[in-house]
C-alpha cells in the first residue's frame, strides 16, 4: 500500500513484561482517513499496543511507521507533536485546570509557551490565545460542555470526562486519534453520541484507531477491524469478514 493509503504501520512489534509477552511479533496497518477498530479479548495486548504506538513503551525489536516516518525511537511528545494523539483507558486529564484550560493546553507550538514570547511579544500571544479559546469554545459547544467551561475538570462526571477527553484531543490537531476504550463506563445514549462524533470527525479527515469492546458500535461505525489475541494480530478485514473467521470466533467472539 502507498503512504497515502496507510497512516500507521506496525511491524514485528514485541513487548514483554518480565516473562510475559504482552505483544508478540505483531504486525498490522491502519488505513488513512478510516475508522479502524482494534478488538480482542482481555489480555490480548491491545493497550500495550497503544502504549507502544504512542511511545510510552519501547518496542524491541519491531518498528512503528507513522505518516511515512519511522517513529520507533521517537519519545512520546515527538509522536504527539507529529499528530499521533492518544487518549487513556481510564479518563485522565488536568484535574485542577478548568475545562476551558484543559482545551487550551493541547495545541502545538503555542507562541506563549515560550516564556520569552510571553514576555516580549504579548500581542502575538494574546491574539493566539484568542484564537485557541474560540476554537476551544466552539468544540466544547459541539460536545455539549460549553456550560461547564469554567468548571474544574476533576468535578465533571465520568461521561463528561470522556467527552472532554475527545474534545481536548481534537484541540491538538490530530492526524490519527488513538482512542483506548472511549466508551468504557459510558451509558448507551452517550456512547451513541460519542460514536456520532467519531463518524463526523472521520469525515473531516481524522483517522481513528479505537480499542473497543462494544461490538455493536464497532459494527456500526468502523470501516476496518483488527483482531488481536495473545499478542498477535489474528485477522483483519471488515466486521463481517472477521465474524466469518473461525480463529476469531474461537478466540474472542465466542461460539
Amino acid at each position: 500500500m502507498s503512504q497515502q493509503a496507510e497512516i500507521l504501520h506496525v511491524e514485528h512489534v514485541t513487548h514483554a513484561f518480565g516473562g510475559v509477552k504482552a505483544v508478540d511479533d505483531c504486525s498490522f496497518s491502519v488505513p488513512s482517513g478510516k475508522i479502524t477498530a482494534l478488538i480482542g479479548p482481555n489480555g490480548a495486548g491491545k493497550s500495550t499496543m497503544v502504549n507502544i504506538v504512542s511511545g510510552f513503551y519501547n518496542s524491541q525489536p519491531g518498528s512503528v511507521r507513522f505518516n511515512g516516518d519511522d517513529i520507533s525511537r521517537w519519545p512520546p511528545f515527538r509522536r504527539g507533536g507529529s499528530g499521533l494523539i492518544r487518549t487513556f483507558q481510564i479518563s485522565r486529564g488536568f484535574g485542577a485546570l478548568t475545562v476551558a484550560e484543559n482545551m487550551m493546553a493541547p495545541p502545538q507550538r503555542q507562541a506563549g509557551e515560550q516564556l520569552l514570547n510571553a514576555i516580549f511579544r504579548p500581542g502575538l500571544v494574546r491574539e493566539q490565545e484568542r484564537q485557541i479559546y474560540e476554537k476551544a469554545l466552539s468544540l466544547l459547544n459541539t460536545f455539549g460542555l460549553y456550560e461547564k467551561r469554567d468548571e474544574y475538570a476533576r468535578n465533571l462526571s465520568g461521561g463528561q470526562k470522556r467527552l472532554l477527553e475527545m474534545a481536548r484531543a481534537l484541540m491538538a490537531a490530530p492526524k490519527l486519534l488513538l482512542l483506548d476504550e472511549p466508551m468504557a463506563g459510558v451509558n448507551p445514549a452517550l456512547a451513541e453520541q460519542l460514536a456520532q462524533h467519531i463518524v463526523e470527525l472521520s469525515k473531516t479527515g481524522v483517522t481513528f484507531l479505537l480499542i473497543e469492546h462494544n461490538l455493536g458500535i464497532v459494527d456500526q461505525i468502523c470501516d476496518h477491524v483488527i483482531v488481536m489475541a495473545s499478542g498477535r494480530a489474528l485477522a483483519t478485514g471488515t466486521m463481517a469478514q472477521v465474524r466469518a473467521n473461525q480463529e476469531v470466533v474461537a478466540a474472542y467472539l465466542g461460539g
Partner: protein
Amino acid sequence: MDSIVLYATTLLVFFFVNNILTWGLNIQFGYAGILNFAFIIFMALGAYVTGVFTLPMANGISGQTYVLGVSWPFPLTLLMGGLASAAVGLLVGLIALKRLRSDYMAIVTVAVGVITYDFVGNTTGLFNGWDGLGGVPSPLQDRFSISYGAYQWVFVLLAGVVMLCMWWLAQKIDSSPYGRTLRAIREDQDVAESFGKNTFKYRMSAMIIGCFYAGIAGGLLIEYITAINPSGWTTGETFVIWTALLIGGTGNNWGAALGALLVPVLFQEVTRFLPQVASNPDLIPAMRNVIVGALLITVLWFRPQGIIPERKWRFYDLPLKRGGPAAPTATEGANVAAG
C-alpha cells in the same frame, strides 16, 4: 543609630528575600510540581557566588580562603549568584528530572542537599569551609557618604527593586500559556506528553528559573548581612520555605508572598528579637518550631490548598449560541482572571 530602624529594615529585607525564595519554590512546586527538598542549597550557592564575586582576592590577611575574589560591582555579582544557582539547578535537573518522578526525585534532591552541604563545609578552599564567608562589602555603600542607618534604607530600596523584578517575572509565568502548560504537566505528565509537550524540557526550565530565584535571594541576603556559613542553610531551612509556600498557597504568587510574611519573617525572625527567657534560653527557638509545625498541620487539615489558593482562570464569554459574531469583550486578552 536608632535600633528600631535597624529592626524594621532588617525585617523588610528578610521579607523581600523570603518572597523571592518562596516564589522560586512556587515556580518549581506550585506550577511544575517538582519536589525539590534541596531548595535552600540554591540560595546558599547564590549567596556564596555573589560573595566571592564581590570580595577582593583572598590574601590571607582576613584569614579566609575562597575562589575568585574579583571585586565585581553590585548588580553583576547578584546576577552571577543567580546564574550559578541556575546552572547547578540544571545539573541537578539532569539527574532528578530525566527519569525520576515525584517521590524518587524528592529523595535525590535530599541527597544532593546533604552532599552539597558537606562538600561546601569540608572544601575550605572553595567558600572558606565551615567558617563561611564574612566581611562581604554591601553594595554601593562606599558610594554614599551617609550614615549606616540611612544606608539601611538604601538597601531596602535596592532589594525592593530586585524583588519587584522577580515578582513581575513570576506573574508573567503565572498568566502565560507557559505557566498553563507547566500546570498541565503537574496535573498529568503523561497526558501532557501525549499532546506533544516536551515535559522534560518544561520541567527543566521551571527547575532552572526556580533555582535562579533562590540564587538571587541568597545573593541579596549575603549583600545585606555580609556573611554566610553552613549553619545558615541546614536542611531544616528548606522546610521553612516549604512551610511558607504550603501555608500561603501553592500556585499563587500572592499566597507565596503571604506565606513568606507569615512563616520565615514573623515566626522565624520576629521571635528572634523577643527577650530570652533566662532560665531556659532554648525555649523561644523551640516554641518557634512548634508554632510553625502546628500552623502547617492546621492549614493542611482545614485548608489544604493554602490560605490564598491557585486562582481559577476564567476567560471572556463568547456569544456562541446566541448568534452573532464571536466577539471578545472589552477585556480583550484571553487570560483574564476573574477570581
